[in-house]
């Protein structure tokens, strides 16, 4: 029985008051409690950024790696011990900018892990530059005349890359987000959850109220999340911003195709006395 108290790391988050990351932290804790996952069997893997400080604010195992590089170690930790619950997390710059290559490849591997992106459409920790999800034309510290690049569509990208669970949440709706994260963790395969995360310091032009006015829930409008075509269509909507589960499908996971970890996680296998005779045969 996991409790919220158990998950308290004892460290106060260093985020700005009102930051959407508080809600995301809350939702992750809520999801772990809901699913009853022991903290010592959970690993939160992050990159670098405001949101990537997450591992320090929750009492589980944590790996705070390099900027843009949360997914590679998350995948490796999962493969090394697939009995663990692995949650990769990071911002939109971390995941869709510098980390874009790893993102696409991770989505197509369908390893059993969850990837939460704290999407605030800005680079926060470095004080306000444009990010891959910053809408074209937005004025930021590095784009004072308006961003020229067309913004990335993360949902479309993960659908196209073969992700088997694609969802979007909103930091302004914690119960909904908690449910989504719990579903994502429970999903057998890669779960991508992009989260609208208002940044109260650098994106005062994107306040909670604006999100609330544009957002609607996919499940409220009869969206069939087993329909890939419908998911693609919803992913391309710009007038309104859908949240909820876009797409989910059951497929074999990456680990399903590795026969020798079926009965025992890799790290539990004995390495004290390896016999290399078979390997040496071809050189004898």
């Amino acid at each position: 029985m996991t409790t919220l108290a158990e998950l308290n790391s004892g460290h106060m988050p260093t985020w700005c008051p009102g930051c959407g990351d508080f809600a995301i932290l809350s939702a992750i804790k809520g999801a772990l409690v809901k699913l009853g996952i022991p903290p010592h069997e959970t690993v939160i893997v992050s990159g670098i950024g405001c949101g990537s400080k997450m591992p320090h604010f929750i009492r589980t195992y944590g790996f705070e790696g390099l900027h843009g590089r949360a997914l590679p170690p998350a995948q490796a930790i999962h493969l090394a011990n697939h009995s663990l619950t692995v949650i990769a997390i990071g911002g939109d710059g971390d995941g869709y900018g510098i980390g874009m290559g790893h993102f696409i490849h991770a989505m197509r591997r369908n390893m059993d892990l969850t990837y939460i992106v704290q999407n605030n459409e800005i680079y926060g920790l470095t004080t306000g530059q444009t990010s891959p999800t910053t809408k074209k034309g937005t004025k930021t510290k590095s784009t004072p005349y308006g961003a020229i690049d067309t913004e990335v569509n993360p949902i479309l990208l993960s659908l196209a890359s073969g992700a088997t669970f694609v969802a979007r949440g909103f930091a302004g709706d914690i119960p909904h987000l908690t449910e989504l994260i719990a579903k994502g963790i429970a999903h057998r395969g890669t779960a991508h959850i992009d989260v609208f995360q208002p940044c109260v310091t650098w994106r005062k032009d994107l306040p909670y109220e604006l999100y609330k006015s544009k957002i609607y829930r996919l499940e409220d409008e009869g969206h069939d999340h087993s329909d890939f075509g419908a998911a693609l269509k919803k992913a391309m909507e710009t007038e309104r911003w859908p949240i909820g589960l876009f797409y989910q499908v059951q497929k074999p996971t990456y680990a399903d195709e590795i026969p020798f970890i079926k009965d025992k996680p890799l790290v539990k296998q004995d390495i004290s006395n390896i016999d290399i005779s078979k390997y040496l045969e071809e050189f004898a």
Partner: protein
Amino acid sequence: MKSKNSINFMIGGPAGTGVASVGLLFARCLQRSGLYVFGTNDYPSLIKGGHNIYAISAREEPIYSLCGKPDILIALDKKTIEIRSGELSSGAALIYDANRIADAQALAGRQDIIYMGVPLTEMATKAGGEIMFNTVALGTAAGIVGVEFGVIESLMGRIWSKKGPKIVDANISAAKSGYDFTSKLKKSGFAKRIAKKKVDRKMLFMNGNEAAVAGAIAAGCKFVAEYPMSPSSAILHLMAGHERDYGIIVKQTEDEIAAANMIAGAAFAGARAMTATSGGGFSLMVEALGMMGIMEVPCVIFNSQRAGPSTGLPTYTDQSDLKFSLYASQGEFPRIVIAPGDVTECYVESFNAFNLAEMLQTPAIVLLDKYLSESSQTVEDFRSLGLKVERGMVLDDEELSDLSGPFKRYECTASGISPRCFPGQKNGMHVCSSYEHDETGFTSEDGKNRTAQIDKRARKMSNVPEEMIAPTFYGAERDSAEILMVCWGSTKGPAREALRMLQEKGASARLMHIRYASPFPAKTVLDELNGAKRAIIIEGNSEAQMRSHILEKTKYYIEETLLRYDARPFTPDEIASKVQEVLSKKGR
């Protein structure tokens, strides 16, 4: 004075004509005949065409590099005759396709070699396919030196078994026709013969990549994340080929950055993890290297050096990444850098790298180079070495349960080495972070803590006993040596052969081969240099990188150098010549 029962062989042709596979087979035939063999390849960076060779030296005693000029050359095309004839010894046999080449002598321009035109294509076609003309030539080469045909037959059956019995039989038939043809060559005047010797120990024929993989598997490596890059790609193929035999997860990644970051994650989770690459790939791993250093996760990175910089010469060799390996990544943190010198050391030091990385909880770089990675040697079976897996300070569940308070993954111990535990273990929760951190792993910008963590990480390196990392010595004793030759990495082979040549000429030389660049055996190296009458350093780069490293670590500056940076390995001749030149100089 060459050993009587010895032979030098070369085969050359365009890529795609089986130069390496025939060369390798001939090398193994010689080993089966009781000789010690050294074989190496040379090929440009392309898939078809160009000029490839496989060269062999074999003799009754252990052999460490190519020694002397080829006594036999199989030329599979005209280009080979043009390019390589000048290298042949006097009286050498040049085997070529009489069906395709009209006037070999005009191409070769030598009066003192024996031209053996053999109807290779005709005989190959009769045996089942023109493509086997290289096998016919192999048969002839074996025939003229006296290798028993049975050896060829059984080796082909074993090594080429994957091609299927039909192809194997056709090749045996092709080789036989080439072998039998030698009865027509009895009056050629070719004098070299080898005598079959009985071999009582179990010997292997392996190259550096193959031995490094053996060491990694034996050391319990369970996770490989790698991106293909010449000359390290074979490591990926070998590991992948055996993943199910040994339960090793092998992942070809999207790039080297993913590879390096993956192995850090795997190591954090408790799996012994490695990657392999060459200079350009290692460049991409640099940020992750520092992360491994500050996180204190053990990873093993094999860098098989090619001639750089940048894309450089992908299929040629160099020793120019030493300093790069020692200093890569921002900031200061300990790392292990080992450069094995021969195939057996590739096995041993690969194994050691995994142990040391976990003992010191820091990344280990094993420096190979194209020459070492792809040159094969006769070596004794590694299983007799009896190396043991040692995982360092890893706490079990019971030890963890005794703890009160948060687990201090980065505890400032006297040795600098902190206790380690893995995700899944109760009571051991901590964050492994690339930020500077306090003893629990929590991000910390505090000055006192920062100084303490830097010192803690640095003093981890002092835990390695000097005996483990000490250089190896060959040749004369310190007191009697006229000169101390210093080298590192694969220069060891040619240097050992040079030592032999010098001994035969009555010169008393001593060779010091350095394997560990970090931690560095400063005391032993300085003692040795101080006790030497003269010293010379031999390395395959233009800036004398090991000389600089020795200077930094011992304050000793080695005046004399022999540097080679034409992207080729040293020859024993040039080393011996240079040493003699230095010896003949007046004064120190």
